[in-house]
């Protein structure tokens, strides 16, 4: 079970934030084009940084707590990290936007009535 730890941490991040899309009204997963246009440059910058740092031995990943699948020297979990964490931030940002819109429209209705 130990080798699943990193993947389970990422899974928990997805599970905790998923309701923001389907209950909170954030539209992130449902805008795949915008999401891709955001994630590709983010991935290029930050996975690039990660690859260089790992190459220089600034940090490294436990063999015990990762599945052992690697892509260009990074565990597969680390690649997923660059999808999961930005999506969590976007869902938070979008849900806050929804909240502010509904507050505004409620305030608008009140001022009109």
């Amino acid at each position, binding site marked *: 079970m130990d080798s699943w*730890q*990193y993947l389970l*941490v990422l899974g*928990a*991040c997805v599970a*905790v934030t998923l309701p923001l899309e389907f209950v909170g009204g954030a539209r992130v997963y449902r805008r795949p084009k*915008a999401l891709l*246009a*955001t*994630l590709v*440059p*983010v991935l290029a*910058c*930050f996975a690039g*940084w990660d690859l260089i*740092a790992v190459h*220089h*031995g*600034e*940090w*490294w*990943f*436990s063999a015990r*707590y*990762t599945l052992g699948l690697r892509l260009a020297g990074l565990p597969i979990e680390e690649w997923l990290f*660059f999808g999961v*964490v*930005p999506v*969590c*931030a*976007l869902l*938070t*940002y979008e849900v*806050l*936007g929804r909240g*502010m819109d509904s507050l505004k429209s409620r305030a608008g209705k009140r001022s009109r009535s």
Partner: protein
Amino acid sequence: MIGAYTISAICAPAAVLAVELTVLRTGILRRGRFWAAMAITLAFQIPVDGWLTKLSAPIVRYRPSAVSGVRWPWDIPVEDFGFAFALITLTLVLWERTRLAATAGYE
């Protein structure tokens, strides 16, 4: 000697802010919603990153000479917060940029 990760964790947020202020110019930094999302995401970073970096069973380990050695809260290297700030800022700026470009396209 300042560690390589310490230097990059300071430079990366500055670089992302510079890109927003000079190139992308979405204006997102003036919005409370951006800072609120940042505060919430960084707060959630603590349990997640805390689990990844805990010294008793670390998933990620750092070369001592690459970091400052300041680990707080729990065992999180403070540099991780610079990394996260840059990552989240770039994400939200690009998302906002994409939205603005789409809106402009409809006009």
